[in-house]
């Protein structure tokens, strides 16, 4: 939003809106219409006509104004390489099949999204410009919730908020597991990306059970037990018979997923949230070594978060409150500002679930271990009212919040954020090494290292959110370059991302090696010979 301030627009009302619209056209996203790569204008027009015949005129978006919502993204895209040509929004599986037929006929590339809120990874934007967004949000039915088994079957458009409301309305004794951005994102979309949350059901793909996939040729595959005639076990047993296929459709472009089964966690009678404060940057090693045995034995059962102080501050504050220099914010400043707010340099959030007796038995064991590692162990007794503690207490019971999106404005009103998420084994020296390397590289580019480690059973997802101001073209370029260097140099040490932004999908895929790429390419050729579904997704053409 360079040029015109939002205040002026708001004051100017309708006139301001017109200015805004004018500016959108003047932006690099405007100019000549974005077209699918190597497709003639009249062929595109013919394809659009066929798509309109399927979904109706209201659900094909192909002009500058109506495509605007699909272009918005937080990640750097200095060269305009992730601009969709439009969007089409089906309301049923039959419409998806018909759309794929048209796409095959015209070789029209389609980028499927469920809610398209893949924030920090490209939102709804495609791996390459010109692809048309296949927006599945209108397919938003909660098809079935089994009250006895605690399973759900949902369509792509169902958000965590929708399921939360459903469980409440039907008074069902189950908890959801949410990513930190639950209210506006899709259960299906998040799970296909192999996203994470913070209850004991935090590894979403692990708790997924059965899916329905429309393949490029229009055939419908139900995975696992779903293929059995009159099956009553589709959402009860994950593995089915023969090769396990579900994994092929996660982080992939082999099909369009139209239904997904999930398991829900029985609501425990008691729940207690903990926060452990550690004072020093290098404490990450001791924290990791302390948590590992508890996660392996499941004595601490949930998706634990080890939150860096800079990340926590960025949620509710802006950088210039603390630091006005161009260089990275120094550790001393972060430490001082964190301490003022009851935060350590690292803040580890975990929870115990069960009955009071169970929690009472486990608590002293974990307390002793964390205290021996140099941490201060806090609970609601000391921390009620602290906004960070309250936030994580909400997350670890699957509650609804969007507070973490505050970090996107850390560097300025322009907003800007891209995620790099390398995996580390849960052995202290490794995350310590990753933290040092990330700090060094981000320091070189004048960005602030604001980490969160999400702890799985035996590894940590090291979530590095690179925060920049997207309204500053120079910062946008610098963020892009910093990202590339981080991915490359982490890769040289054998550390790779578990997921990636659309801007770095190919770079990360290279690190997984030639054979891996060739196997994926052969599968793609067999399942989608015209390459119409999300070409470039995870580096698969």
């Amino acid at each position, binding site marked *: 939003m360079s040029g015109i301030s939002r205040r002026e*627009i*708001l004051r*100017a*009302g*309708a006139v*301001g*809106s017109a200015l*805004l*619209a004018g500016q*959108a056209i003047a932006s690099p996203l405007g100019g000549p219409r974005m077209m699918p790569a190597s497709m003639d204008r009249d062929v595109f027009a013919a394809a659009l006509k066929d798509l309109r015949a399927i979904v109706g005129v*209201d*659900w094909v*978006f192909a002009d500058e104004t109506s495509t*605007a*919502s*699909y*272009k*918005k993204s*937080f990640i750097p895209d200095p060269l305009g390489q992730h601009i969709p040509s439009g*969007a089409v*929004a089906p309301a049923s599986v039959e419409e998806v099949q018909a759309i794929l037929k048209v796409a095959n006929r015209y070789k029209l590339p389609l980028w499927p999204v469920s809610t*398209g809120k893949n924030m920090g990874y490209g939102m*709804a934007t495609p791996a390459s410009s010109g692809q048309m967004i296949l*927006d599945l*949000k*209108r397919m938003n*039915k909660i*098809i*079935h*919730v089994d*009250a*006895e088994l605690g399973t759900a079957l949902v369509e792509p458009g169902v958000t965590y908020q929708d399921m939360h409301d*459903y469980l409440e309305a*039907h008074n069902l*004794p189950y908890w959801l597991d949410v990513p930190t951005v639950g*209210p*506006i994102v899709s259960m299906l979309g998040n799970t296909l990306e192999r996203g994470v949350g913070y209850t004991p059901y935090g590894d979403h793909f692990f708790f997924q059970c059965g899916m329905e996939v429309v393949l490029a040729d229009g055939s419908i595959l139900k995975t696992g037990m779903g293929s059995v005639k009159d099956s009553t076990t589709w959402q009860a047993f994950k593995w089915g018979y023969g090769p396990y296929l579900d994994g092929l459709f996660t982080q992939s472009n082999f099909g369009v997923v139209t239904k997904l089964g999930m398991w829900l966690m029985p*609501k*425990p*009678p*008691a*729940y207690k949230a903990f926060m452990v404060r550690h004072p020093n940057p290098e404490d990450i090693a001791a924290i990791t070594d302390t948590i590992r045995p508890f996660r392996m034995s499941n004595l601490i059962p949930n998706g634990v978060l080890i939150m860096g102080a800079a990340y926590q501050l960025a*949620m*509710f504050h802006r950088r210039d409150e603390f630091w006005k220099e161009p260089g990275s914010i120094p550790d001393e400043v972060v430490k001082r500002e964190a301490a003022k707010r009851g935060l350590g340099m690292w803040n580890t959030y975990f929870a115990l679930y069960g*009955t*009071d007796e169970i*929690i009472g038995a486990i608590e002293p064991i974990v307390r002793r271990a964390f205290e021996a590692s140099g941490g201060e162990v806090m609970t609601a007794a000391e921390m009620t009212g602290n*906004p960070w503690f309250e936030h994580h207490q909400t997350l670890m*019971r699957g*509650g609804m919040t*969007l*507070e973490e*999106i*505050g970090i*996107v404005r850390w560097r300025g*009103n*322009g*907003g800007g954020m891209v995620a790099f998420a390398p995996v580390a084994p849960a052995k202290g020296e490794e995350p310590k090494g990753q933290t040092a390397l990330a700090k060094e590289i981000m320091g070189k580019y004048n960005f602030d290292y604001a980490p969160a480690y999400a702890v799985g059973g035996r590894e940590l997802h090291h979530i590095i959110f690179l925060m920049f101001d*997207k*309204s500053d073209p120079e910062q946008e370029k610098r963020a892009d370059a910093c990202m590339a260097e981080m991915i490359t140099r982490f890769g040289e040490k054998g550390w790779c991302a578990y997921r990636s932004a659309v801007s770095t999908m190919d770079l990360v895929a290279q690190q997984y090696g030639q054979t891996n790429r060739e196997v994926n390419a052969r599968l793609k050729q067999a399942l989608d010979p015209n390459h119409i579904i999300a070409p470039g997704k995870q580096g698969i053409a």
Partner: protein
Amino acid sequence: MKVAPRRVLPAAIALGLAAMLSMTALRAAQASDAAPPRAPDTIYAKTCGYCHGHNVGPVIRGRALPAEAIEMIVRHGQGAMPAFKPTEISPAELSALAKWIAASKADSKEHGQ
């Protein structure tokens, strides 16, 4: 929705369990294609209100913001605010929401950032 740690009441749990087991599988009401538009206050509470007046975005109620600008900002996104698509908030819903926000009173429980 906060679950306070509490003493376990075995009888209550047994009762709850019995009620659960007697429940047959629920089938969600199939939302018909023409789902009725959601009311502005519902959309505000379940989308906008998690950020606005709640640590992430500025307060937008009680400021008589022009409805056209609100619609524009929702569709385009702005800075740290994501855009919301016509499939998420329909044109009719957005138009009613923008008018509702424009005419709304401030809520003293909200605080901007």
